[in-house]
Each structure stands twice: as structure tokens, then as C-alpha cells.
């Protein structure tokens, strides 16, 4: 198994090797020996039941959680090495610069309420990347235009709908030109009608070749956007497929079949009088 993974390592934007994640005072491993690669320009979708470790996986990659085993590498360079006993260590000490290479969008948007739309998007490029203000503003407006929100540049986050906020949050991550973009159930808090406008943006990004790892419960979206798909359960990879179409129609494992069936409904029969 490991050999195959090493082979595909060439050209991987992000590699995760034997990742172990454990919380303090918890016997069970939240992530146990998780390994995969995300090739450059590809979209990996991670699905699985609640509590399977999907979000935790993204959080470890983003450096928000310390890992207790394994490695995370960005473009071939190891950025995180797991050490046992680091359960309470807090966030990774990785550099500001390195953090800008991995973008993350949260379920709850997490725009900064004390900044306007433009202020939110421009903050990190100005403070962290020390880029030229005029250039950053130009790019911010361009991004806003792409997500259809150019006219909201001076709005405050509280004036926007959830779907609009989430599109702004995506712009805020994209302006840093991250090698990998992590999307953590970004539509889970949205009304059905707003889900579409956000997912359209993500599909556009996928077409443009943005490397992404997406955690989602939207199976139809997963099917539309995934180049590869992982089913995670209890911190283990149950099935890893680079043929999403096949995964959704005839998955290899029984577990995947049962998981996918939970998203299907049959018409309830009426009681015969």
C-alpha cells in the first residue's frame, strides 16, 4: 500500500503519510494511519458520517491541530511531523508565510465583523504578504467580480446573506494564492438556495485547476466536483477512489454502499385502506 502511494507522490501538491491524531484524555484515535496524496490541480473530496474525523483531518493540514504521528508534506516538503504526547500542544508553530500556502474556508464563514468585505479580503495580503495596496485591491475587486459580488465591496459582513459571506470567505482565501484550498463543509450552514451559488464558485475553481480538499455532505456536489474521493470512518480511510463516478455507482466496499444508501430515499408507500 505504502509503495503505491510513494509512486504517486510525484507532482503531489499535498501528501499525508500515516497521519495520527489523538486528543488528550481520549483513548480512541480521531485519525489513525491516514495516508493520501492530492495531485496538483486535482480535487479530493472527503465524505463520511459525522464524527469520522473529516473536519479534524482538514484542521491538522491547516496547522490548527497538532498531530501525534505521521507526516504532512506540501509540494514534497515536509511541513508537519507527528510526535506522540503533543495532544495539548495547540496550533502548529509553522511560519506565517507557510500558512498562506494552505487556505481554509470554514462552515461558519468566519469573516471579521469589524472589517468591510474589502477589508476582510485585503487584510492578509497586506499584513502577511506585504503586497502593494493598489495591486491587492485590484485583485480583490477582480475576485469579487468572479463570485458576483463586486457591488458589495464596501458592505459589512452582517449586511450579507450566508451565501454571500461564504463567497467572500472563499475570495479571502484565494487572494493569497494557496497551493491547496481546504473547504470544511462550507455549505452546511446555508439555506438550500444559497448552497448553489457557493458550489458554483467551487466548481469554477476546480475547472480553473485549483487544488482542493473538500469535506462535504452534498453527495451530488461531491460527484460533480471530485477527481478523487475518500470515505472516512472512525478515523480510517474505508475507501479511496480516483474514479468518483464509479464510487458513487458501484463502490468497492460494503461500507461505502451502505453510506451512500443513506442519501437515497424511496417513496414511502401509502397504507392501503
Amino acid at each position, binding site marked *: 500500500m505504502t509503495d503505491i502511494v510513494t509512486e504517486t507522490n510525484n507532482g503531489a501538491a499535498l501528501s499525508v503519510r500515516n497521519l495520527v491524531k489523538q486528543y488528550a484524555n481520549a483513548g480512541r484515535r480521531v485519525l489513525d494511519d491516514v495516508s493520501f496524496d492530492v495531485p496538483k490541480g486535482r480535487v479530493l473530496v472527503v465524505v463520511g458520517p459525522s464524527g469520522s474525523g473529516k473536519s479534524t483531518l482538514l484542521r491538522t493540514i*491547516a*496547522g*490548527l491541530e497538532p498531530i501525534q504521528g505521521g507526516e504532512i508534506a506540501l509540494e514534497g516538503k515536509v511541513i508537519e511531523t507527528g510526535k506522540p504526547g503533543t495532544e495539548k500542544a495547540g*496550533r502548529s508553530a509553522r511560519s*506565517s*508565510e507557510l*500558512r*498562506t500556502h*494552505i*487556505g*481554509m474556508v*470554514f462552515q*461558519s464563514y*468566519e469573516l*471579521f*465583523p*469589524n472589517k468591510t468585505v474589502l477589508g476582510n479580503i485585503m*487584510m*492578509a495580503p497586506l*499584513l*502577511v*504578504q506585504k503586497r502593494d495596496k493598489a495591486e491587492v485591491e485590484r485583485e480583490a475587486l477582480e475576485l469579487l467580480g468572479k463570485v458576483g459580488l463586486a457591488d458589495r465591496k464596501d458592505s*459589512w*459582513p*452582517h*449586511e450579507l446573506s450566508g451565501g454571500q459571506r461564504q463567497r467572500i470567505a472563499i475570495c*479571502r*482565501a484565494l487572494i*493569497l494564492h494557496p497551493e491547496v484550498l481546504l473547504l470544511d463543509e462550507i455549505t452546511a450552514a446555508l439555506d438550500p438556495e444559497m448552497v448553489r451559488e457557493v458550489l458554483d464558485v467551487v466548481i469554477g475553481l476546480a475547472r480553473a485547476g485549483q487544488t482542493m480538499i473538500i469535506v462535504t455532505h452534498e453527495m451530488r456536489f461531491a460527484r460533480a466536483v471530485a477527481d478523487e474521493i475518500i470515505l472516512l470512518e472512525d478515523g480510517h480511510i474505508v475507501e479511496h477512489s480516483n474514479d468518483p463516478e464509479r464510487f458513487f455507482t458501484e463502490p468497492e466496499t460494503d461500507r461505502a454502499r451502505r453510506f451512500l444508501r443513506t442519501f437515497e430515499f424511496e417513496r414511502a408507500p401509502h397504507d392501503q385502506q
Partner: protein
Amino acid sequence: MQGAEILLQPGVMPRLLQGLWVTVWIAAVSVIASVPVGLLVGWLMTLKSRVVRVLMRIYLDFIRIMPQLALLFLAYYGFARWFDWNLDATGACVLVFILWGGAELGDLVRGALQSIPEIQSESAYVLGLSNWQGFVHVILPQALRRLLPASVNLATRIVKTTSLAVLLGVVEVIKVGQQIIDANRFQYPTGTLWIYGVIFFMYFIVCWPLSIVARRLEKRWAND
């Protein structure tokens, strides 16, 4: 309107205003200086170090448990004796009010900082902001908004508590009022109420704008 003429006596209003100036000066210096102290104390209270937190806790509890009057006497008489540091009455007042305001504001700052969800600082982290940048640009501005109403309340409490300065012999607005009443006891026996009425009005004029500003800002930030 019996006794109201006392207010028209030459020197009465100017002296009251002078007294008011002393009150406002002590209060303003104390409130303004409490802000950096409070921010520092509040920030220290959120740190992980147990030693720092315990020290801050002791400071806050000490200031809270002691009556302000006792603190004033401690500063006025105690400092001279223990440290050979001869604070004048006004200085002692300002010192005590800064320590008091700083402690109370610190606790407000701590509460406001801790009320900002952790994920906001995570959001700053993944964007590459340093801890300090995240604190200054993301957490602190939000916390300041949240603690505004309570801190204006604290400021008006400080203004009102400056009247204790009388007991150290500071001639602020209430002391001036008493002096005027005493001096005119026989000429205007009913002047007392008028003088205190004016003093009430003066306190109101000082504290009211504070609450107006607070209400305005609150309204402007209400939706965040």
C-alpha cells in the same frame, strides 16, 4: 424659590465650577489612564501562565474587596509611611482610581476577549496572521465593541466616586458646595438644597454625554 438667591451671590457659581473642574480633572485623568492599565490587565488575565493569572486575580480581588475609601487612605497615608513617597491628596486619588478602574476594566476586557469565539482567531491563523496581528486586527477590535457599554458605566462610576476625595481634603465640587453652605448658613438657611441641586446637575452634565456617546456607538455597532 426661597433660598435660590444663594446661587446668585458673587463667587458662588465660579467657585462651584472650579470645584467641578477638580472633579472632572481627577475623573478624566483616572478614566483615561485606566484604559491602558485595563487593556494590559485584561490581556494578562487571558494568558495561559498560571502565575500571571493568579497575580491578576489577587490584584482584582484586593481592589474589589477593599472599600474605595480604605484604598484612598492606604494610598494617602500608607505610601508616605512605607515608601517615603509623599503623594498629595489629588495624586493619591488619581492613583487609587487608576488602580481601581484598571482592575475593573481589566475584568471587562478579559470577559470581552474570551467572548470572541476561538474560531475567529483560527481564521486569522490560517490567513497567516501572527498571534499579535490576529489580536490587534481581529480579536481586540471586536472585544472593544463588546465591552463598550459596561466600560462607560464604569467611567460614570469613577466620576461619581471622585466625591470620596473630599475625605482626603481635596476641594472638589462637593467640598466647595459644603463650604458655600457653611459660609451662608445664617444668611440663606434654605440654600443647602439649591447648592446640592446645582451639584447634581453638574454631575449629570458630566456623565450624560458619556452615555449618549455609548448609546450612539452601540447603535452603530449593533449589527456586528
